């Protein structure tokens, strides 16, 4: 086995493992997120209600922070596999694109989390 191949395999294995672990995190996070939505909309959906619940809350900020990190890692790794199997893109180009995609995803996610936190309790 040559060194490059060993390195690529090592990275593949790490990414695979990260994707499995983030899948577990997402499975829990999505259930909490959906359950919260279902409970929250019982009295009608309003921006004020969302801000009063999530705004300024360190607990929710941490929960959604973890959610954003998990999603930002999980999605690009999965998409990377699809691109590598289904498109003629080079491994380097695929990796570059997916690092960019993950960065954008996490950027948007954290922007939303921070905005709610800084908003305070409305």
């Amino acid at each position, binding site marked *: 086995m040559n060194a490059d*191949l060993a390195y690529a395999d090592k990275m*593949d*294995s*790490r990414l*695979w*493992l990260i994707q499995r672990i983030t899948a577990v995190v997402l499975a829990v996070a999505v259930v909490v997120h959906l359950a919260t939505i279902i409970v929250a909309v019982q009295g009608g959906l309003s921006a004020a209600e969302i801000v009063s619940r999530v705004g300024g809350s360190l607990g929710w900020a941490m929960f959604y922070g973890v959610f954003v990190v998990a999603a930002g890692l999980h999605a690009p790794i999965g998409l990377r596999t699809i691109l590598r*199997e289904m498109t003629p893109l080079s491994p380097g180009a695929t990796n570059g694109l997916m690092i960019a995609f993950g960065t954008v995803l996490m950027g948007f996610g954290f922007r939303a989390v921070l905005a709610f936190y800084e908003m305070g309790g409305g």
Partner: protein
Amino acid sequence: MKVSIWRGGKVGRFVAYEVPRLENQTVLDVVTYVQRKLDPSLSYRFSCRVGMCGSCAMTVNGKPRWTCRTHVSKVAVGGTLEIAPLGNLAVIKDLSVDMRVFFDKWAKAGGAFKGDKTRDDDFALIKPADKQRQNANAGIECIGCGVCYAGCDVVRWKPDYLGPAALNRAWTLVNDARDTQGPVRLQLIAGENGCLGCHSQQSCQEHCPKHLSPTASIAGLKRAVSVAALKGRL
């Protein structure tokens, strides 16, 4: 009975033959009839005729099968047969495919047993109920026919993917207490072209004539690779 058989190499066409329908008849009987009675230039491969050697696999009406133990009555939809070479392998001529890539991947997956005992040592004592031995037993009856490999979508998408048979073999050795290649083998089968490339679509176990489950073997390898990676042994 109307039988269409692939003639040629990568480029070729289906040629129709008329073969007498017998009450008790396998697909291999049909191919043999064509070669012996109708066209001696037809190339195909077989040996044992009893489901042991794994050399007669072909694509029958679109599905990879062992032809010596596939009865015509079971697969002839509307009384017709279409027989093609196995998929995912290069066609040499007619129904014969080049199996080298398939078996080379067994070697790449660390498919060779390596022990540290000599003939002067005593037998390894392994209890039949031993969990590892049972894992190995579950995969050990593979006859190397290539049916799972031909039916695997991941192999079709990624020609470098090791495939179900080679990984199943690796899993039987990972569970062999006498084998000494543990960490080395895990490094060979980790990675995207190894066990982590499997999408668990289970075509391999759907088609396996021996009713093995390479998917389960590959899942076992994934667990072993995960544990090794977490412990920093990969």
